[in-house]
């Protein structure tokens, strides 16, 4: 009995010291300014686009809100800034922003930069192909002799060259820099295949007069782990990483922004995992003390932003114009065969 009381107390004291020692300058700055600067793309349908009121909305922006809800207790305190040509990674390294949620692919050379940290992958994308159904092709390997429309000067072209080259498939490239012109050319039949990231293809398909006439081939020819980027700061990185794990755990346990208030009202009768996730005197509360977050951080994330599945469905799921299936893709939870593996909160 005694030990059970002493240990948490000792932890609390230690945690106090630990917070003092570890809370990095970024975390301190965010708390002092009561605002978190988060960079997003200015124009990326489904991921971040300003709504009619000029407020950025989309899958990526919700991870800015998640972090603000966890650290500051209010998702609206995320200062979401669109950043155009000037590279978001350079801005992070120059300390012009705290984090970026901008569909940035984590690569080895980028991660080697000491001025920034890749924290956690929120979306697994990859390059794919779209074809008109009347072409009668089911696999990319059957594309011998095809004309491919792709964006000029992009990594898309390099990936195509690698993939087709490895398989000795003949192809011809139609380089078109402007997106609308490229889509027009594809829909009008000037090229057989449109190559791009699969999320982009899904939204492009909807622009056809009859989206049903076009299909996206199953092959994914590149890995694009789209990852949250932050300024280097232990406490801040830990907060982002575990805020994301809370969203994954909540989905795995069926906790949503809709039902969380009912669950909190009856927390004592919930499964142990849910109690650890939201109880202030359990694992979540302990973490809050050690990282320096408000005691109800996990509740605020789910209440204000939702679990991962809710965020996905809100912006990319079957009820949106993207209608991107999640089952059996990399972006499903690990229990459903995907790559999103909720780390245990205990």
């Amino acid at each position, binding site marked *: 009995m005694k030990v059970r009381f002493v240990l948490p107390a000792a932890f609390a004291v230690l945690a106090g010291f630990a917070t003092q020692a570890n809370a990095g300058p970024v975390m301190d700055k965010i708390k002092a300014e009561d605002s978190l600067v988060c960079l997003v793309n200015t124009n990326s349908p489904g991921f971040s686009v*300003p709504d009619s009121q000029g*407020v950025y909305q989309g899958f990526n922006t919700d991870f800015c809100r998640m972090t603000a809800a966890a650290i500051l207790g209010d998702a609206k305190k995320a200062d979401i*800034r669109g*950043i*155009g040509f000037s590279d978001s990674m350079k801005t992070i390294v120059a300390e012009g922003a705290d984090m970026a949620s901008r569909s940035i692919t984590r690569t080895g050379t980028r991660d080697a930069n000491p001025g920034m940290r890749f924290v956690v992958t929120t979306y697994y994308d990859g390059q794919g192909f779209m074809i008109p159904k009347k072409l009668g092709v089911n696999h990319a390997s059957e594309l011998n002799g095809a004309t491919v429309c792709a964006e000029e000067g992009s990594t898309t072209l390099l990936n195509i060259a690698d993939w087709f080259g490895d398989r000795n498939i003949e192809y011809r490239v139609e380089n078109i820099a402007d997106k609308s012109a490229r889509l027009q050319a594809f829909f009008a039949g000037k090229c057989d295949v449109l190559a791009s990231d699969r999320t982009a293809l899904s939204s492009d398909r909807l622009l056809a007069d009859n989206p049903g006439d076009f299909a996206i081939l199953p092959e994914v020819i590149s890995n694009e782990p789209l990852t949250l980027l932050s300024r280097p700061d232990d406490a801040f990185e830990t907060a982002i990483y575990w805020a994301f794990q809370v969203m994954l755990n909540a989905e795995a346990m069926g906790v949503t922004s809709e039902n969380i208030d009912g669950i909190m009202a009856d927390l004592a009768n919930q499964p142990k995992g849910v109690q650890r996730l939201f109880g202030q005197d359990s694992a979540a509360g302990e973490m809050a003390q050690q990282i320096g977050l408000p005691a109800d951080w996990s509740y605020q994330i789910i209440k204000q932003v939702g679990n991962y599945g809710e965020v996905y469905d809100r912006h990319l799921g079957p009820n949106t114009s*993207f209608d991107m299936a999640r089952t059996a893709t990399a972006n499903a939870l690990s229990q459903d065969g995907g790559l999103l593996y909720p780390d245990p909160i205990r």
Partner: protein
Amino acid sequence: MEQTIRAQTTLPPKIGFAEKWRRRLFGNLRDGILTMILIAAVLGLGSVAINWLVINAVAPWSTADLCREATGACWPFLVEKHRLILFGTYPWEQQWRPFMASLILLIGVGVSMVPHWQDKRLIWVWLGLAVTFTVLMRGGVGGLEYVQPERWNGLPVLLMLAIFGLVFAFPLGLFLALARHQDKLPALRAIAVLWIELVRGVPMIMVLFLGLFVLPLMMPDDIKLNPLITTMIALVIFHSAYFAESIRGGLQTVPLGQYEAADSQGLSWFQKTRLIILPQALRIAMPGILNTVLGAYKDTSLVVIIGIHDIMATAKMSFSDPVWQRYGLEAYLFVGGWFLATCWCLSSYSRWLERRTS
């Protein structure tokens, strides 16, 4: 008798209105065929346009749900998105500020176009406008909330870059033209020649990139330049060269006798230039100057390439919203309408000015 004959030969034979047009349009077989083809083309294109713009379009006051089925324009789209196109991501409740800021700039331009008021006072008007514009947009003083430049989008950015760019480029261009036109100070003349020819020899995009990337490198470390300011400096450098050449064209038309007459009056160089030479040169150069102004105004939208979101970029944002992505044409028509209206005002002003001076 003689009188009547003269009257008969000088007056054209009297024909009716219908007859006159019949002869003009269907005078012979070739004219008739051409007329028919043109009428068919105008009717065809016109009916397509009317169908799309009005008959098959969804009226602005209807709900947007009807747009899915309609084959014409979706006007509810512009009702929904016009503020995003005009002011972008500027905080919604504060959007009266970019509205006022744009309005005072337009009024400033209107005032500067009145010939009677074109004198030294305009310098103070424009300095005052620059300060008021910045205070309104940026805030942080007088109880106005601070708004970071990343959130300045749309119309005020276009107007700011185009108008201030041109207003500051004009005096610089004037100085360059005078420097190049004289031969007493050869070093100054060489610098002016180098400046003008270098800038005119490269595309505007390159000058913009120089402004965005190279200019900050030349600054001391503790000065962080706002990208809008560096872009404006780049635009001023660019437009000044074109102004200089337009003005120099005017300077060269002033006859040598005017210079000699001014010298014989004992006028200083400054008096001579200001009182005798420039009034004549600028009048001649005016069409060229206004031509530069029109071109520069429209080229301002190129700044989207360096990540600055003027009205063209916000128009693109408006139809990137997944729910509204089919209505790009409506968005571009809105922006096109704005440019057409403003450019038409500028070119009518230039025609009016020419009639007035000739």
